[in-house]
C-alpha cells in the first residue's frame, strides 16, 4: 500500500469515528447536545494532535522509540500545582481563579520547569538526553511525594477536585480554555515550522546531523521547547495522558514504515484522533462513564510500553 493510501485510510477512519461520535443517539435535543459534542471533538483533536506531534519530535530528538515527553516530570508538576492551590487556598479559590488563569498558571509553570531542565542539559558537554529525562523523572517523583503529602491533609470533600484533576478527561472541557489552547498551539506550530525540515536529518543521530550542517544544540533546544509547550497545553487542558503519545507514535511508525516525518506526523495525529474519539465512544457507550479515558489509554499504553521493552531487539 502506498503512503497516500495508508494516510487516506487513516483519515477515513478518523472522519467516520468523528461522525459517529457527533451524531450517534442524537435524539430530539440535538441543539443542546451537538455543540457540546463538537467542543469535545475539537478538544480531542487539539490534544491528540499536540501529543502526537510533540511525542514524534521528542522521539526523533532522543533517537529513542521508548521515551515520551511526559516522563520529564511535567505530569507530576501539573498535579502538584493543582494540589497545592487546593491545599493552600481551598477549592473555592481554584474556582474563583477562573479556568483561564488556572490554565495559564499550569502551562506557564510547566514550560518554566522544562526550560530549567533544558538549561541543565545543555550546560555541560557530554550530557545526553537521558540525563535530562532522569533529572526530570526525579523531580517527578519529588513532586509526587509533595503532592501525596498534601493530598492526605486535604479535606475529603475538597479532595474531589484534586482527584478529578489527576485523570485526563474530555468530559468537561471549557470553551474559553479551548480558544486559548488553539491560539497557543497555533502560534507554537508556526514557530515549529521553521525547524520541521531538520527532523529527518536529526533522526540519523547527533553526529550525522552535525556533519550535514545542522546547528544541533540550537535546533534541538528549540524543538524541545515546542515539545514542552505542546505537552503542557495538552496536559493543562485535559489532564495527564502519559502514555498516549507512546502508543500512537509507535503504531504510526509500524503502520507507515517510513522515516519521513511528514508521513509519520500526519499518521500519528490521525491515529491519535482515532484512539481518543474511539476510546471516548467506548467510555461513554460501553462503560457508561464509570471510568475515564485516560485510565484506559494509560493502561494500554503502559502494557504496550513493557511489550516494547521486552521485545527490544535493537537499541
Amino acid at each position: 500500500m502506498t503512503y497516500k493510501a495508508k494516510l487516506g485510510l487513516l483519515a477515513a477512519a478518523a472522519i467516520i469515528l468523528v461522525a459517529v461520535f457527533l451524531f450517534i443517539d442524537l435524539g430530539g435535543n440535538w441543539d443542546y447536545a451537538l455543540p457540546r459534542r463538537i467542543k469535545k471533538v475539537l478538544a480531542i483533536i487539539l490534544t491528540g494532535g499536540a501529543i502526537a506531534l510533540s511525542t514524534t519530535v521528542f522521539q526523533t530528538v532522543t533517537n529513542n522509540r521508548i521515551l515520551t515527553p511526559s516522563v520529564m516530570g511535567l505530569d507530576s508538576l501539573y498535579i502538584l500545582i493543582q494540589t497545592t492551590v487546593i491545599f493552600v487556598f481551598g477549592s473555592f479559590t481554584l474556582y474563583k481563579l477562573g479556568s483561564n488563569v488556572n490554565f495559564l498558571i499550569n502551562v506557564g509553570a510547566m514550560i518554566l520547569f522544562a526550560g530549567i531542565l533544558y538549561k541543565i542539559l545543555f550546560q555541560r558537554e557530554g550530557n545526553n538526553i537521558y540525563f535530562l529525562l532522569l533529572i526530570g523523572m526525579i523531580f517527578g517523583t519529588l513532586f509526587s511525594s509533595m503532592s501525596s503529602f498534601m493530598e492526605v491533609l486535604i479535606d475529603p470533600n475538597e479532595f474531589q477536585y484534586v482527584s478529578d484533576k489527576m485523570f485526563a478527561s474530555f468530559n468537561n472541557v471549557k470553551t474559553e480554555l479551548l480558544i486559548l489552547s488553539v491560539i497557543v498551539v497555533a502560534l507554537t506550530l508556526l514557530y515549529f515550522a521553521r525547524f520541521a525540515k531538520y527532523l529527518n536529518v536529526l533522526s540519523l543521530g547527533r553526529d550525522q546531523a552535525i556533519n550535514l550542517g545542522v546547528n544541533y544544540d540550537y535546533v534541538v533546544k528549540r524543538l524541545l521547547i515546542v515539545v514542552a509547550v505542546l505537552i503542557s497545553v495538552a496536559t493543562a487542558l485535559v489532564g495527564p495522558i502519559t502514555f498516549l503519545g507512546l502508543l500512537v507514535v509507535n503504531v504510526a511508525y509500524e503502520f507507515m514504515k517510513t522515516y519521513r516525518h511528514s508521513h509519520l506526523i500526519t499518521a500519528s495525529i490521525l491515529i491519535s484522533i482515532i484512539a481518543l474519539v474511539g476510546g471516548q465512544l467506548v467510555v461513554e457507550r460501553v462503560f457508561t462513564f464509570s471510568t475515564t479515558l485516560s485510565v484506559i489509554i494509560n493502561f494500554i499504553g503502559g502494557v504496550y510500553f513493557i511489550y516494547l521493552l521486552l521485545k527490544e531487539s535493537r537499541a
Partner: protein
Amino acid sequence: MIQVTNVSKVYGGKKVVDNVSVTIPKGQITSFIGPNGAGKSTLLSMISRLTGKDSGQITVDGKEVSQWKSGDLAKKVSILKQSNHISLRLTVRELVSFGRFPYSQGRLNAEDEKFVDEAISYMELEDMQHKYLHQLSGGQTQRAYIAMVIAQNTEYILLDEPLNNLDMKHSVQIMKILRKLVADLNKTIVIVIHDINFASFYSDYIVALKDGAIESEGKTENIIQSNVLRGIYDMDIEIEEINDNRVCVYYG
C-alpha cells in the same frame, strides 16, 4: 587547508589531546595512527566541530571552525564516525540522498539526484540502492555511508576507522576508492586508522599520535620505519618491502 594550532582537550581530568599542532596537506590522504587512547578520534572530532576543543585553534580554509556556519562548513568538510547503527527504515538511495542536505535542505532537485547517482555508482551500489539498510551486511552498509559522504561532495573528507567491521575484500575496496577520490576529484582525505599496513599502502602523509601528542609526522616512507614505529607503539616492528610498498610485520 586545515590547520590545527595548539589544540587541547581534557576528559575527566586527563589530557586526551595535548597541545597538538598540525597542518593537513591538501589533495592527499593523511592517516592518523597511534595506540589506543592516543587521541586520534578526538582530534578528528574536533576538526569537524563534532566535539568542542578546550583550547587552541582549528581553521578550515583560513576560518576558525567555530566561526563557520554549520551549514556552510557541511559543504566543505564531511565526517563519518564509527558507530552507525541507526535503526531507521531507509533505503540505500534515501541514505545517500541525505548527503545533499547541506545544499537542498531535504528538497532534492535534478542536480542533487545526479550527485546521488554518481555517488552510488562510485561505490558500486546500483543493484542494491532500493534495498533497506537493515537488509544489508555490515560492509555494504559502510559503503552506503561512504556513498553518502561522497554525495555530500566536500573538499575535505574525514573518516574515523572506516575499515572497522569490514572484511579484507571490502577494506581494500574502500581504500582503493579513497585513492580514486583523491586522484579523480582532488579531495583531501584524513582517516583515523589502526591497521598500519593499510596506512602504509594507501596514505601519502602520516601523523602519529601518542598519549595525546604528536609523536611523529611526515611522508609515509619516513614514518614507516622501525625506529620511528618503535617510538610510537613501543614495539619492535620489522619492515619488509614488497612491490614498492612497505609492509609492517609486528606479529612475532
